[in-house]
């Protein structure tokens, strides 16, 4: 009898605990990303994961806490594929050498950075935090979630990308210090675009040699070479920052030469060569479409921005994402997507560009990027359609938990 009572109590406790984990959200519209929005949608979350998503007739499990959100709109948590706002420029750029592939952006990460909090309040739940653009080959990026301050950083994927930079930016500051000693670390190649490209070629050539050697001789590991070899093998996503047309072209050429695939970050003039990009299957990461000025430490590289970039890429079938990128004047990501709509993208495409597509690019779409059964329950409740400039993110959930800020 006593055992039975205890079992009942335990079962009740378990049921109560489980009850806390089941939530159903009813909203006027749900954008799951990767498809059309659902009117009068229902989102069911169990244990921090999406259990079901559908229209008004979606089955809601027993014991679920139902949240009737009225006219609110739900979208997946946004994914910023080019986050360059955490960590000082000094800390995200190792200046002692031009080629530092083994530097890791996770070592320059502050989860409590106010910029991260701001992004989260604006509906961004996943960030791709990368090294800066001052080195030719800057290092490894990491995908993190903008989890609550009290919890440790949720690392979604480490060492996910390798950053390469074309153009004037990596060669800035490289020269002999006037009147000073020539043993400064800045007195070195490259000081021109040619030098920048030469560095990339040299690095990958050495990596190819290294690849042969280690197979043959079992020599000790060189961390820099190891990373480059992984890039050659397609085990990390190579992202090349290139703004002007000539730099984008060079980036594609280098990738072709060494047999790796690259995405293009910024890609300000990508609209001029959309067909080539489509042929190369290179994803363009368009940064801050709202900005009237191209931003970069080295200036604009002579790149001329257009508002038509995104629609041109869409028409030509070039894969693309929208990010905040390296532009200090960038608006919160949701509003950048809104500007993408203003400049001609459909709302579905614009939302995909800040959710599912970046998740796919970074290889984390099994967990985030859209609201589908089995994925993490990272979602945002908006006061109205997120492409309405008066919309506000009223609640942000990560892993099903609402984040109180």
């Amino acid at each position: 009898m006593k055992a039975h009572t205890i079992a009942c109590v335990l079962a009740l406790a378990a049921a109560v605990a489980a009850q806390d984990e089941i939530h159903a959200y009813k909203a006027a519209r749900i954008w799951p990303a990767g498809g059309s929005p659902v009117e009068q949608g229902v989102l069911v979350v169990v244990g921090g994961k999406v259990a079901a998503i559908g229209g008004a007739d979606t089955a809601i499990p027993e014991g679920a806490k139902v949240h009737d959100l009225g006219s609110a709109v739900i979208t997946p948590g946004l994914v910023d594929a080019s986050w360059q706002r955490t960590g000082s420029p000094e800390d995200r750029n190792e200046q002692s050498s031009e080629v530092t592939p083994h530097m890791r952006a996770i070592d320059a990460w502050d989860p409590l950075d106010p910029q991260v909090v701001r992004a989260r309040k604006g509906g961004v739940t996943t960030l791709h935090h990368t090294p800066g653009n001052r080195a030719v080959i800057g290092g490894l990026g990491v995908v993190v979630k903008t989890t609550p301050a009290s919890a440790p950083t949720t690392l979604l994927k480490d060492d996910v990308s390798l950053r390469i930079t074309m153009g004037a930016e990596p060669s800035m500051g490289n020269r002999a210090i006037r009147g000073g000693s020539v043993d400064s670390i800045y007195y070195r190649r490259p000081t021109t675009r040619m030098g920048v490209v030469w560095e990339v070629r040299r690095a990958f050539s050495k990596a190819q040699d290294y690849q042969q050697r280690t197979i043959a001789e079992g020599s000790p590991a060189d961390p820099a070479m190891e990373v480059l070899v992984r890039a050659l093998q397609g085990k990390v996503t190579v992202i090349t920052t290139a703004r002007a047309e000539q730099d984008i072209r060079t980036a594609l050429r280098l990738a072709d030469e060494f047999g790796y695939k690259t995405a293009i970050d910024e890609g300000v003039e990508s609209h001029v060569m959309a067909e080539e990009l489509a042929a190369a299957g290179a994803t363009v990461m368009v940064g801050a479409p709202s900005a009237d000025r191209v931003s970069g430490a080295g200036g604009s590289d002579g790149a001329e921005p257009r508002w038509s970039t995104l629609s041109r890429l869409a028409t030509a079938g070039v894969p693309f994402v929208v990010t905040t990128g390296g532009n200090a004047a960038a608006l919160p990501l949701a509003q950048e997507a809104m500007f993408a709509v203003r400049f001609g993208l459909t709302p579905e495409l614009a939302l995909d560009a800040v959710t599912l597509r970046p998740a796919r690019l970074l290889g984390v779409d099994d967990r985030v990027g859209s609201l589908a059964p089995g994925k993490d329950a990272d979602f945002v409740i908006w006061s109205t359609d997120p492409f309405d400039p008066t919309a506000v993110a009223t609640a942000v959930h990560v892993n099903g938990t609402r984040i109180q800020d």
Partner: protein
Amino acid sequence: MNKHLIGAAIAAALSLSLAAQDTVFVKGGKVVTVSGPVIENGVVAIANGRITKVGPADQVEVPWDAQVIDATGKVVMPTWVLAHSQGSLRSANENMQNVPYVSVADAIDPSSTFFEDCLRNGVGTIHILPGNATLLGGIGMIVRPAGRTVEDMAVRTRTGLKLSLQAQGGARLQQVRRMRRALEEIREYLADFDRRKAEFDKEKAAGAIPADKQWTEEYDRLKKPGIDLVQKKLKGWMYVPSSAEVDEALRLAEELELAIVVGQDVEKAASKLARFKAPVVLDENLEYWTRDEETEAERKVCTAKVLADAGVGFALSLGAGGPTSYPWWQLATCVRNGVDRKVAIESLTTVPAQMLGIGDDVGSISEGKFGNLQILSGDPLAATTWVETVLLEGKVAYERSKDQRLQYLLKAPEPAPAKPANTGNGGD
């Protein structure tokens, strides 16, 4: 007698037909008058540059030969009014600090892309003033964004004297002291002038001065604007950079006729500004983050919302570039932060019109006002809305279909001809 009648009749007929050519009817759109109700299917009639009638389509007759602009499916609004701008000024600030005598009329560049952007964004009236970096900056004027010369563009001249409490390479307090000193100097000059005149009159009355010598002195031309300011004959437009200077501005507002333009850090002085009893102009930074020094937590502040909550009226400004240069973005920012939509729209229409003293001419669609209209493709606060047409005093000043720069930006360029495959390595 008959001849006169016929002559009169002919004259009348002629003037009628002429009038018909100066008359424009904008019909079919949703008319947001701002001062009155929204008219779903409305007609706005403009003649000789001014609105003659506004009403629902079934209440306003459109003559068969009238010039009609079809706004079906669109939104018709008054053009936006900017109470304070440095747009188009090649150099907004003089190097010398005390230059009340310079005028923006000499610095406005009619060919500036600023005016092109104004039309593109539906701005129809701009009050241009010198910048914020000069103590007594110079005289402003109100312009329309269309015309070949400054004279063509002028709506009102000598509209105000720009003042600024922004610290120039020194402490805040120094700029306040400089301002007080500058005004004191003007008053001293006036007192001295009056004293000399009184002396002259006295001596003349005493018969000491020969009859052919008259008091012909006039105020120093260079000092005149400052004198007009002190004598309340000219409105001062004072830039108040932060809450620390608000007290001084309020004190000066008691002596002068002042309009206040506030910088970003207005949050802490909102209740003080309520004592000013007139709307203030906000600068273009409507939204910013402040950090609590102790907890390091950040908080978003919207200057418009702070003022709205404190019961202070405000007019908006536009930035020089980027999203803050778009009226729709600035308005949406206000609404996003909780400002009432109606109050937001008024901050770019009726409120600045009142502040500029041209409330009878611009700011809303009502009889008697200028035919300054913008026809929008949709809701003025929506991201997908574009300005299709702008009428300034009844004349079409902008049409999006003919906007080459916009087409250049928005239309995708022709794809580059296919390049031959790259055969070898080596630089290009």
